[in-house]
């Protein structure tokens, strides 16, 4: 039976600076030992023509992400979303986040296992 997916995480990766606040916020929230957690930040250095390159960071929710259900039930943002220094993460119903994606490029929508 497919699980029903309602909520997701929208990442505006144009503005993710690779500060890793999301990763440590998650570790603190759930007491994850170092080396595991609900979200990981990936660094991508894209090689472009003419000796150019573009540096991107991308937070990626892991198999352990539960979209902070205990927090969102209390009306709080997920730990990663609240603390993101670049305010580039958004939590919400998938449909609403999809609409957001029309606003600007360099966005990715994650729908974690949750």
């Amino acid at each position, binding site marked *: 039976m497919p699980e029903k997916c309602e909520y997701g995480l929208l990442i505006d990766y144009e503005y993710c*600076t690779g500060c890793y606040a999301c990763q*440590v916020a998650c570790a*603190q929230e759930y007491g994850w030992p170092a080396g595991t957690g609900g979200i990981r930040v990936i660094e991508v250095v894209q090689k472009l023509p003419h000796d150019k390159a573009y*540096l991107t960071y991308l937070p990626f929710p892991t198999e352990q992400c539960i979209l902070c259900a205990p927090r969102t039930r209390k009306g709080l943002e997920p730990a990663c979303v609240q*603390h993101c220094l670049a305010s580039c993460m958004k939590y919400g119903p998938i449909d609403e986040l999809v609409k957001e994606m029309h606003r600007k490029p360099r966005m990715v929508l994650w729908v974690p296992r949750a």
Partner: protein
Amino acid sequence: MKGERRIVRTTTWSAGPGCHGGCGVLAHIEDGKLVKIEGDPEHPWNQGRLCSRCLAMTQYVNHPDRLTRPLKRVGERGEGKWQEISWDEAFDLIETRMKQIREEFGPESVIFSMGTGRDIGPWICMLAYAYGSPNVMFALSGLACYSPRMSAVDTVQGDYCVFDAAQWLPERYDSPRYEVPKCMVIWGYNIPASCPDNLFGHWIIDLMKRGTEIIAIDPRLSWFASRAKKWLQLRPGTDGALAMGFLNVIINEGLYDKGFVEQWTNATHLLRGDTGKLLRESDLIENGSPGNFVVWDTAKQAPVVWDSGNVEYRSSDTGPALEGEYEVRLANGDKIPVQTVWSAFRQQVNQYPLERVSQITWVPKEDIAEAARFYANSKPAAIHWGVPIDMTPAITPTVQAIVSLWCITGNLDVPGGNVISRFAFDVVAYALPGSKGVIKLASKEADQKRIGIDRYGPLNKFIWRAQTDLVLEQIFTGKPYPIRGMWIQAASPVVGLGLDPKKWVEALKKLDFVVVADLFMNPTTQLADVVLPSATFLEKDGIRSWWVPLQSINKAISVPECKPDVEINFELAKRFDPDFHWKDIYELYDEIIKPSGMTFRELQSKGWAIPLEGHPSAPYHRFQKGLLRPDKKPGFQTPSGKVELYSTLREEWGLEPMPHHEEPPFTPVSQPELYKKYPLILSTGRRSPVFFHAEHRNIPWLREIDPDPVLEIHPDTARSLNIGNGEWVWVENWLGRCQLKAKVTLEVPKWMVMAAHGWWFPEKPGEEPSLFGVWESNINQLIPMGCQGKDGLGAPIKHLLCRVYKVNGREETEDA
């Protein structure tokens, strides 16, 4: 009640996240222990956000290796043999030993050594001054960080300033008084590590989302460079030349604000053709003041005196010439040619045609021109620089050039520009560039023994610290007086701050008595006689006064036997100084924040406070409104009352008065022979988002993210040296070598490598020779002491030379 959770609202500053602080946080406390920390969504500074280092506070506060008892050395220095003692025993021991030194050699024989600013400056000054020593030292060569920066900016415009992200306005970006900068020049600064001194780094991201476009000046492909409208990939250490190139374009293409230049700078003041120096009233008229200057009145075709003290012309209808050469008769009857500062400034700038600037900086001239035009045509525009500008011996002339840029484009103290930053409500705890503070030395005479004061102008005018390179030298020479002891607090000269760190170890071993206050054992504590366990920001009541807002730090927890730095120093200050008059720290806090009209308890109940418009510490346009000078007249707090494109102070110090480029001491240009042997530019100190300098290597959540000391190297360079990603390499130059782990990446150019700084390994043995493995990867072993600039400031930290080769036979770690 057991299991009950309470939440304490407080402000970060230093120990813990380690940084320059300012974030509002909510500390969740259960049974007296910290169980969680979050950003305070109601705080205007960080608006709920919080960095990785602060989010890891539970691992920091409750760390099993935290120092919790004072320790007394029982073996040889460095042997790692310690005995736990009580605080009373520790205070008695320190009091006895330090009083012995004071009696025998004088109070100046003890150096009080601190790390970067933060919540340590006032309290280490308080202790040093109570003891009677003027020698408070920021332990980095050439003090190459914030105080030279402030001093250099003050030299030009009399007050410091920072970029405007509406931090002075409680409603921030939404305030109708605010304007988002159209352009921001990010000069040698990398965002992921978050917060430059006393600002929240990600404010710049907030601005970018609101339309600010970026000019990135950086040899690295930084995050900003990657997203910039213009990226200028300059050769490290050539920032001065680049800024002169900007000025060249802006002035010669007429893109400057002529009204500002004429009215608010000393562009119209006259320079003598015979000496090249400022023409002063005393040159023209017998008994004239040497503090007054002279302009050429175009209507009268005669010189008119500018009265600096009254910030006005002697004749009210003066129309000063901006450019030109004239002739004046001196008091002694001689006739001499004169020209305006603006004419001389233009000649200076014209020595930097873009061909030459491009040759020096390695940046294509079209890119420089386009960037300069974009900056000048954007209104408002702001500039923010990182420490690469401070970490060069020619810091002051470089800063003069950059400050001239924002001044002549009319971006000074305007919404969205570079805004004058003063301590909120003029609450100043201790002597800093531009301010005196509540905590001061008992007498001017005591200050005369401060090391460097007689040699370097800025140390006599702006910076109330000992000159670090001279201190190190004096420890070995004993001249002009012996150095016998050192108090080290919130600093690690063996790891983070100390260049040529083996020399610092040798120096520490020469001293009779060394005290280190810290939170964890580290390579520097190993060389102490007494180690004192300090506290994190969560364990203290305090105040944070650094620009805006004025904030209280509110004690949330206690960790048994750990003491906040302020309390350690307060107790000893009482013992050292019979005239120390404060009853407790709260009385001291009340006195410091008195200009705000609040008591400490009142401030605590508010948490933070921002000064209102009309106060000298609140923007904008203060030089027009007469809010900067003590006499309330429009103008600036400089010797002439104007922005000084030609610096009166530098002239008086016997240094070049106008901005220029100086080639740093160890570059391919200044050392062509060394460059043959060491063919890569070595730059150091790229920031990690999870460490504050030498801190946090022992915090599991953070170390996991940045586990190894990294050397960034370009793929082509790595290939030519047969180096693979993740391989350990030697980085070597004529001073030493260390091992780093290659990160093969396009983030650096082919001709440069970037080495991480501040590395030691808390998991390795603490005793000598290991000292927590500090000699394995400490890149400071490749950087010399004693290369400070002509004014005693700056050091070559970002531009050295090296070669890189594989480490043979090193056991690879699993993830290599």
